[in-house]
């Protein structure tokens, strides 16, 4: 029993031990990222549709989300407010196609916080973001809110330039305060490559 508790304690303290390593960044360091990749429709929650309140994955069949896999591009700028934590903003453009072969786009403008527990030449950035979301489809548009979670790995080829691979989740709720029957939530899984410049 004692051995088990020790293992659990060690696991809980692991992130802290990572932070205990020498920090590469200083407060005030900056990092700029250009990101591009694919998005996979993950789930669509539409409570108004009692027959299919939740659909998953791309495809036109029953239970699918009636859209294709899509793409995403993003730029972000962050400043380290702590040697292990950077704060900044990200502007992204995400798109995919519905079964009507019409493009649907989402433009998240998020405040983004990134923790970099492993840093140096090889890094493990873990990010959360939240903010405004501008969605549009077939001539109609709406401003809403969204959030994201992202984790990845990146390697700095030079002291300033690096490339990374990221995986995450977008959560895009479309909320109508007075008309809940129109509200629904879309979720995507972005899989992206990033080119990073740090200074």
């Amino acid at each position, binding site marked *: 029993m004692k051995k088990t508790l020790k293992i659990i304690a060690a696991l809980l303290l692991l992130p802290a031990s990572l932070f205990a390593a020498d920090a590469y960044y200083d407060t005030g360091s900056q990092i700029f990222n250009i990101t591009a990749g694919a998005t996979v429709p993950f789930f669509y929650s539409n409570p108004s549709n009692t027959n299919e309140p939740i659909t998953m994955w791309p495809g036109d069949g029953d239970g699918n989300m*009636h859209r294709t896999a899509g793409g995403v591009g993003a730029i972000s700028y962050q400043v380290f407010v702590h040697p292990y934590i950077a704060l900044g903003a990200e502007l992204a453009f995400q798109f995919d196609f519905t079964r009507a*072969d019409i493009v649907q786009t989402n433009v998240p403008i998020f405040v983004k916080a990134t923790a970099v527990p492993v840093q140096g030449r090889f890094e493990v950035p873990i990010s959360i973001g939240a903010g405004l979301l501008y969605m549009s489809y077939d001539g109609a*548009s709406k401003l809403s809110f969204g959030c994201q979670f992202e984790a990845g790995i990146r390697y700095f080829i030079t002291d300033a330039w690096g490339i990374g691979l990221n995986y995450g989740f977008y959560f895009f709720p479309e909320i109508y305060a007075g008309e809940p029957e129109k509200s629904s939530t879309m979720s995507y899984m972005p899989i992206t490559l990033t080119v990073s410049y740090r200074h």
Partner: protein
Amino acid sequence: MRKIVSAAALILITMAVSCNLDSSQGIYQKAFYDTPKDDITIQSVLGRIGSELIIYGNGDLYRYDGNQMHLVADITKYNMEGGYMPFMAADSHVYFSYIDDNDTDDNDDDYFRFFRATLSEIENGLDSSFPGSHEVTASFSNSGSSEKIVKFNGLFNYDMTKTQVLFTVASDNADASKPDELITRYGFINKADVRGSAFTINGGAEVHAASSIIGDGILRAYVDDPDYELNGQTWTETNLLYTTNIDGTKAVEHKSSDDNNSIDYSDMVFGSDGTYCITLGGELFSVSNLDDPVDQDFIAEQYYRSNNLMLTYGKNGGGYIGYIYEEGIYVRDSGEAPVLVDINDDNDFITSCWIGRNGSKYLMATQETGFWVIELAGTDYADSSVMRFDPERDGNLSEYL
């Protein structure tokens, strides 16, 4: 600082207003329910409002003014969420059927209801609480009132003036799980009052449970799989043809496929001038008496190639019948031999289709290539033209041939 926060909040609220958004559904809902618009497939022709045909295709409602197809509204969302199914257009309204489950999981208290909406109401979003929503009542000439409709098997608006319906009834005291108490009937939906706010089903001819409507007053009962389960019963292979009285009060059962030298009723078409057409061995035959066996003498009498025979349109009181073949469109005047409309390249037509008539124009839809209009001209139809609705031109016609 407070002013800055207030200004930012005001800007945010202003920006949060939806732009050009269908008032009935959100962005993601619209994207989810949307269907391809480039090649419109007609699901049914509902009837007329004013001088325009109202058409249900690809989950959308369209109105056809004789020259142009106009999108009224995408109603896929309402079909998926509420089960709303358009089945008739008349008196400035489109009529929808749906199941009212009384907000319970108990199917026994479900009711089949209809409601109607104007085109402008539909554009703003369907709601079964519109005035005109009404429970269906049924009146059968040969039965009492102790029967309850438990299922609609199909609605069919064959000639745009009357809606045919197949439905299953059970007696009031019958457990719906007892198949012996279930009867499938065929009849017509009528408006019970001049305002169309009530509906009745007249007729009620008893037919085979596996029936489907294939023409005006003609049904086919066909079960391919001997283990086919329907209404709790296992049906053996059957191939029956029914014709019904014009008021739907009596169904006449015709001979089965075995009796008729293996006629395949699946490709049977119906001519309103009293001629039936049946495919047999890849050929099309005209039959006047459905109870006559088909023999070689008959085959020699009148037949046409029929690799892709599709649904036809029959003009009431005789007249044109259009046939779609591998090689083109045939038009036949009542009692006359069919004439091939001179179309050189008709490969796009080799799919199922429906033809509606508007003057000399025949409206047609295919499963793969959308709407077409064939305008007949000339005594031998030599001057006929074929036009296609061009989705990139907002439904305008473009010359095809």
